[in-house]
């Protein structure tokens, strides 16, 4: 039941992001509690609107039932920033999220899809080396005062509460969309930093 209700959060956030982009183009001012609440309620309504007997949000869910907590959190940061004008994540926090997600995806997917005899996905069914590694990364990030530590914490909390359909810890940290997005972001940032470097040298 709790997982079913939670499954509407991700599509609602996607719809809200799209609405924010639309209102921005129309030059409508949507920053502040009241417009944000209205946009969110409209988003939830659209996500719950039945299309061919199934709520729109559940159509998205039909194709992928486990959008990770990390992706949901990054989306929430983006939506919150546009809604309230407050940055929950600094660039360095985003960078930590992308590096973590890209590495996680690059480790998990090739092996889980059959490369070699070892399946790391098995480690996600219960407490294992995966939990220990995540705990260590969370502590290191906390020491570095990186806010991505909070997202990792929330992901484990969500896993304990079974907020996703999956019972595997990996699915709470990453999903294919997040991995692709993170890789793209890291490549873009990499190219940007390479472009900036010669300029510095000429100064």
């Amino acid at each position, binding site marked *: 039941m709790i997982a079913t209700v939670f499954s509407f959060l991700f599509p609602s956030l996607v719809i809200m992001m799209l609405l924010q982009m639309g209102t921005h183009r129309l030059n409508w001012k949507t920053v502040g509690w009241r417009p944000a609440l209205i946009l969110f309620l409209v988003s939830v309504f659209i996500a719950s609107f039945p299309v061919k007997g199934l709520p729109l949000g559940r159509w998205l869910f*039909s194709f*992928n039932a486990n959008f990770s907590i990390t992706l949901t959190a990054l989306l929430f940061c983006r939506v919150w920033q546009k809604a309230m004008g407050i940055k929950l994540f600094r660039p360095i926090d985003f960078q930590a999220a992308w590096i973590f997600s890209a590495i996680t995806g690059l480790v998990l997917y090739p092996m889980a*899809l059959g490369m070699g*005899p070892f399946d790391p996905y098995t480690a996600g069914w219960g407490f294992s080396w995966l*939990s220990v590694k995540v705990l260590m990364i969370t502590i290191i990030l*906390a*020491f570095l005062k990186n806010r991505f530590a*909070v997202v990792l914490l929330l992901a484990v909390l969500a896993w*304990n509460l079974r907020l996703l359909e999956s019972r595997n810890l990996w699915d709470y940290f990453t999903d294919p969309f997040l991995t692709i997005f993170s890789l793209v972001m890291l490549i873009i940032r990499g190219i940007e930093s390479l472009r900036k470097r010669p300029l510095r040298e000429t100064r």
Partner: protein
Amino acid sequence: MNRRTVAILILAALAIHVWPFFLWLSNTGAHENAFVLPFQNTTSGRKKPFITEKFIIPDQGDRMVHVASLCEMPGGKFVAAWYGGTREGAKDVAIFLSFLDPRKEGSWTEPEVVVDRISASKELYRYIKKVGNPVVFSDPMDRLWMIFVTIPFGGWSCSSLNVKISNDGGDTWTDTTRLTLSPFLNISELVRNNPVLLRDGRFGVPIYHEFIGYFPEILWIKVKKGQDACIEYGKTRIIGGRDYIQPAIAVSNELSACAFYRCRSEKRKVGMGTTVDGGATWSAARKLEQANPDASLDVVTLSDGRFLMAYNDSFNKRENLKLALSNDRGKTWQAVATLENSPGHEFSYPYMIKSRSGDVHLVYTWKRKRIKHVVFNEAWIHSMEKTSVEKREHQ
């Protein structure tokens, strides 16, 4: 973040891992990787060789049926499941069940739909394009299980697995529960062949993955203690790669078993792996001499410890269905009987069980139009073996 926030964050991180750690600690040693060997040492009450053949369903005309499975419930009733519709993967494909009570009239009941894409969509609260590949089995608590495939989009590679449980012998079923078994959109997990029961109450269900890699796996599943509607599950890989799928597991003793694989590579030979720790780890696959036309096969253990295989004896066609015996735990096989041989027709997806009475029950797809049920005892296999040995000696 100030120091206090950092401290709170670290404490919260530690606290949040306490519950899974406690669960892991309390479950340490709870899993007993030892196979249960029900009826394996039972020989048929009927000493004389016998074989009976009957169809579970009448001729389906233009409609197709495929992928049958069978189980015996603790009360002695048999249940068969298969999928059927206008064509494989069509939207009107449904999963059917039929029952046989040998103590009564001895004929299969009229097939009934247990799940189709509409009911699966409603129960799973999502879009389902098609259903297929049911496997039925019963547990010692008299529960009837059905694991089957649902596909939201695409073909078989986009399958995911689902479970239904019946507490009244198949009259009513719990709502479908979807299992998440793959991190990549939870696709490409399929089921085939007979589960094995473990001493701790878990079932090891032979499943397989087919997307970029093609490999056999085991789904470990059980009902949570004291919670009838709640299941626990996980999976482990048997081997990786791109050659073998659809493992059929034959148990030798509490710790040892062999798995035989359908070969989907150009080798076209049955693959085999072994375990000596109750299915926790498996050896690398070895290629047998037995031909396999990229088709499902099944194996059971007889009371004398030998393995009996039902298979298509061809490198590229499913036009025959044979039985073979192995005296050396699956390394070599000797064909003992030909059940079907008709060029241009398909006889495929054999599924075998040993019943409480010691008889071997086999169901398979007959020309894609019917599901055939064949029952024989070990005395019949021995007589067929004797005949085939005499034939070979004569030649």
